[in-house]
């Protein structure tokens, strides 16, 4: 009887805690959406911001966030997966790899503002990249690489040894075994890691303040030449992202509708992150199904 009572209490406590977390989460999202949704309109999503007048939008910032996400992932995913494959499949278990692993761990717990300053010193100043999307993407890569490496490494280590041996025993080369048999199996876990990393890119502000910058030049959305300084695709132009924009108007916004803009932008940010999450998961499942022929 006593054990059963204890069991009930424990179950109750756990359910209570889970409910509390759910409540906070739902409350937070509901609050942000409630405050922001009324402000979202086609005009708000597409027009440039105003510094002193009311009625400014977040068009360039939204574009910047999405574009920076793409640039960052273009660098982070191949690097992270490559390094993860190396750490899990090729690196010998010695002191050097143990040290690399330690560095990766430490790097992943760095505060993002420190990464931002590192980006300022190295990419912006040392490499003369100025405040630019490229510098921002590199800083975010530094920020996300440890996560990607660790996730890939763990996902590959999670593939049963027999799968790898089955590939090798068929006379497949090591790389073919990894790329065609192990990576598809590790794909769901790697995808989860990628979504986490992408979410961090979207929400990150501190690391971008001094790398991608806090301004956006006048953009000509009809100009798709990536080398032109007014083209939105130019990776070497400064770019204020949505998260940075929210931070900026909250701290120094002079437009009369600054609070509403911040609220609307926050809601947009959350919606995009949610959409991205669900979309990526759906796509991932579809790809995984195709790989594995499961229904």
């Amino acid at each position, binding site marked *: 009887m006593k054990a059963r009572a204890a069991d009930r209490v424990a179950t109750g406590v756990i359910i209570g805690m889970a409910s509390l977390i759910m409540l906070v989460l739902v409350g937070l999202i509901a609050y942000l959406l409630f405050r922001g949704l009324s402000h979202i309109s086609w005009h708000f999503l597409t027009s440039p911001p105003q510094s002193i007048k009311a009625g400014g939008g977040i068009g360039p910032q939204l574009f910047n966030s999405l574009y920076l996400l793409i640039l960052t992932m273009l660098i982070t995913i191949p690097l992270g997966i490559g390094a993860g494959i190396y750490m899990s499949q090729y690196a*010998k*278990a010695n002191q050097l790899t143990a040290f690399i692993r330690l560095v990766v761990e430490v790097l992943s717990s760095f505060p993002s503002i420190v990464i931002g300053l590192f980006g300022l010193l190295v990419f912006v100043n040392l490499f003369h990249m100025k405040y630019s999307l490229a510098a921002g993407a590199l800083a975010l890569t530094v920020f996300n690489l440890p996560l990607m490496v660790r996730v890939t490494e763990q996902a590959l280590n999670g593939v*049963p*040894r*027999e*799968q*790898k*041996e*089955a*590939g*090798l*025993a*068929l*006379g*497949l*080369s090591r790389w*073919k075994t990894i790329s*065609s*048999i192990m990576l*598809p*199996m590790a794909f769901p876990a790697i995808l989860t890691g990628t979504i986490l990393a992408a979410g961090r890119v979207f929400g990150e502000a501190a690391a971008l303040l001094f790398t991608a910058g806090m301004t956006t030049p006048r953009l000509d959305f009809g100009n798709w030449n990536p080398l032109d300084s007014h083209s939105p695709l130019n990776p070497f132009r400064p770019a204020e992202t949505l998260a940075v924009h929210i931070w900026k108007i909250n701290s120094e916004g002079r437009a009369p509708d600054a609070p509403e803009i911040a609220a609307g932008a926050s809601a947009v940010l959350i919606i995009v992150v949610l959409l991205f999450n669900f979309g990526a998961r759906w796509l991932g499942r579809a790809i995984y199904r195709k*790989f*594995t*022929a*499961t*229904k």
Partner: protein
Amino acid sequence: MSDTAFYTKDLSVFYGEKQAIKKVSITFPERQVVAFIGPSGCGKSTFLRSLNRMNDVIPGARVEGEIRIGGRDINDPSTDVVRLRQKIGMVWQKPNPFHKSIYENIAFGPRYHGVKDKRNLDEIVESSLRKTALWDEVKDRLHGSALALSGGQQQRLCIARSIAVQPSILLMDEPASALDPVSTAKIEELIAELKRDYSIVIVTHNMYQAARVSDKTAFFLMGDLIEYDETQKMFTNPSNRATDDYISGRFG
């Protein structure tokens, strides 16, 4: 008496400092089944895994002595381990089909080794599945997931997968120990069929299975080869006292 498929001479395998196999010499006859029996940890699986250099995968594993297939020492630095493994199929204790369709599980190996023509691949898939008595059971769902098959079917699929790349030797590491009795009987029946085309080495902790399926039996104990002889002789009149005790179930 049949020809020799391959042989080992004074083969030792070490895991770090520990010697798992102690100078074992065995000659494997062509197109016969050789069974390895012995208590857990006696080295039988280690020995098997050294035959296609699968121990390379395990950090700290080291091999001494000779394993000669067609006259060549497979541990020679000039040996192309990828080609070697193509010639030696392997089947594991737990069925491990790739997480792909039934068709892809089999077509994958041959395609990698250069068979690009769709019709040829189809033929290989069908003949491999027929040889493993699986064709009639799966021909209507070749493009469905291999993981939807039963354990026994998965194991036969794994055997089909390994023979699709045309090996001459099949290594089986307790291929039926994770299966129910009916599936086990089917695997044993299959082994009897396959020995017409392949030289088979099977590790089994079930000595009755060794008795049923093999032509020759090797008894291992603590890394030593205690006795190696015709299975009939081993199970009716073994020369060694330890073998007698083990197969009579009076061991330890």
